[in-house]
């Protein structure tokens, strides 16, 4: 674990952040955390399992609405609402994932997208329950979390806890089974693993954490809308992961820092954000296929996170 000494530095920096930056940038930091969590959960399916889900926003949105509805219509405390978000999102992931994991490649991508859109339209049309296209307004966090800094620390600790859990999952035998499925699903099947079942479990876990991220978003924004389930929203974690690098655990989080910060920065002086991010993506896809992490690994040979392609290195570990 000493390998990750720099993580400690980052942690301290993040703790001290609100003392040095204006309220606007604290809001940006909260967004980086929430979307980063969303992207890391997406990467469980993409980087680790090797499948492109273009409908991951469905669970993000479901989580957002679960917490949002609970906070607006009942007096359930926020932590409970977040737990409900995770369970609800996990449930939807279970139902949808059941059908999706039987497919791969482009079919998997399109089916996840189709389900995402279905969910989007259902939320959009169900005006009486979800508020439909008006969205849900007036979602208020509890009084002790009303200020930006307070919500920042709250989000920080929850996201860190979630990341730790996901890290352990990814480094467990389950996580390595995922990598093996990514590399060659047939061979994995031959050694007796029920591939579909494993893929489904992974899908559900990823969905749950996406739901947690969504649940955090509602009280932060005070407002949510069905667009959170849209395929455009599904594209956001894909962008972040690709920019940061899909083959490292922290890749999507790095991607979130870059993407969210860029967004806040660019929208300050131009309306042509889609053009900007489109060009960035083209650049990354054509010239930086491993994302920032890939670039870092090839240039510096130091490992911010271990190269996921390799298994455990064994006892000879020069970094420790």
């Amino acid at each position: 674990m000493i390998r990750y000494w720099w993580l400690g530095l980052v942690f301290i920096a993040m703790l001290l952040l609100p003392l040095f930056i204006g309220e606007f940038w604290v809001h940006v930091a909260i967004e980086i955390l929430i979307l980063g969590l969303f992207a890391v959960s997406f990467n469980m399916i993409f980087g680790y399992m090797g499948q492109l889900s273009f409908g991951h926003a469905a669970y993000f949105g479901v989580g957002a609405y679960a917490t949002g509805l609970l906070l607006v219509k009942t007096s359930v405390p926020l932590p409970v609402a977040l737990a409900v978000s995770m369970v609800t999102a996990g449930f939807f992931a279970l139902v949808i994932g059941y059908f999706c994991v039987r497919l791969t490649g482009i079919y998997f991508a399109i089916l996840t997208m189709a389900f995402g859109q279905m969910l989007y339209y259902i939320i959009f049309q169900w005006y009486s329950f979800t508020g439909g296209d008006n969205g849900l307004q007036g979602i208020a966090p509890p009084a002790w979390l009303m200020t930006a800094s307070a919500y920042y620390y709250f989000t920080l600790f929850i996201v860190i806890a979630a990341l730790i859990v996901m890290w352990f999952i990814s480094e467990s035998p389950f996580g390595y089974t995922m990598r093996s499925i990514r590399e060659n699903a047939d061979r994995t099947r031959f050694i007796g693993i029920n591939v579909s079942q494993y893929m489904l479990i992974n899908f559900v876990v990823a969905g749950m954490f996406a739901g947690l991220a969504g649940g955090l978003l509602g009280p932060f924004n005070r407002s949510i809308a069905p667009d959170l389930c849209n395929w455009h929203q599904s594209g956001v974690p894909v962008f972040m992961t690709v920019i940061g690098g899909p083959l490292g655990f922290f890749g999507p989080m790095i991607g979130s820092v870059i993407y969210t910060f860029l967004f806040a920065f660019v929208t300050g002086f131009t309306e042509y954000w889609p053009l900007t991010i489109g060009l960035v993506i083209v650049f990354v896809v054509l010239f930086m296929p491993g994302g920032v992490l890939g670039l870092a690994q090839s240039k510096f040979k130091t490992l911010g996170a271990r190269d996921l392609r390799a298994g455990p290195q064994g006892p000879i570990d020069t970094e420790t």
Partner: protein
Amino acid sequence: MKSKTTIIVCALMLLGGFTLAGTGLAAEPYNLGVNLAITGTGALYCKDGVDAIELAVAEINAQGGFLGKHPIELFIRDSHTKPDVAVREAKDLILRDKVRAILGTYSSACAVAIKPVAQEYKVLHIPAISNSENITMVNFSPYTYQVVPNSYMQAKAVVLGVAELAKKKGWKNYITIASDYEWGRSTQNNTVALLKQLAPDLKLTKEFWPALGETQYTSYITAIMGQKPDFVIGSVAAKDNVAWMKQATAYGFFEKIPYPGSLISVTELIVQAKSMTRGMVGLSRAPFFAHLDVPMMANFVKSFKAKYDRYPSDWAVMEYDAVYVLKQGVEKAGSIDTDKVKDALKGATVDTTRGRLYFRTIDNQLSCSSYIGVVADDPKYPFPIYHDLVEVKGPDSWRPEEEIVAARAK
């Protein structure tokens, strides 16, 4: 490697923070935010709105700004006709650009969405195109002042006219077509409810709800014509309204079926000048030609035409009024402090291009009128306007206070 990135990111953020803090201001400008649909369904209406705001701001700044010493700085954001984007842009405007007031939005859903945000951060909010009644009736915010005749007022105005017509022509049943979003729903619901009160014999046989942003109305047109209703009431918005009316005209819809009292703003009159069916009875929110006797309106039309080489639509009129209402609030308060301005505007009487009007205290609604007329050509203008114009005044058409109190109690 990652720590390096983090440090650079932190440094950049620090820089950003200091820059923001460092905007120490000499003659303190008045930061005014505009949150309109520059793109999306509402873009058609909003361009005029933005132009009018810029005109008003230029006029006021020519005299030194508010109170002669606070030049207005405009910050314009695109809400994309989406509530969540509107909220994000509102927060941006408030936190990054430190605006004191937000003008806009276009979509009623967006207005309802940013209302609590404006209230939480104590920023004035003047919707000048959105008009769903829900903006002022429920979840009342003392920071929101409405200068548009709201959906109830418009519905009442229409219903008064339509009930008359129905009696005269012996109409029995009707169909509605409304854009499926906040404004469409609010307007259609109010219209149907009021019609039931004033003309209880009329039967609503079917409701059609095309989605916001729908571009193909053929199936709706054929379905409606197939049902052969006595008349149709439409609550279709902005771009959709253009598409709907254009396509329906291609079917000869308006010659076959009476279409009374649906929103035909000055924008539609100008954009569809050639194809619009003359003789239709339409509803408008702030047609400039209805108040040319008011000096403020005459001057506005002249300046707008001079600057932009076109006539102002309802939306231009109301956004212009919004800026000047704000100005009068600042003058009454004697300061640009938002809370003082907010209190000054409460129940205030203000001069607008539509005449001298006042804000009702219970819901901060301006006592502005709705306008019904017959589409007809006029030699003065290159587009048809309304003749036989009936102005239904605000106090005659707004929801009675007891009903608002009851609705809020629920």
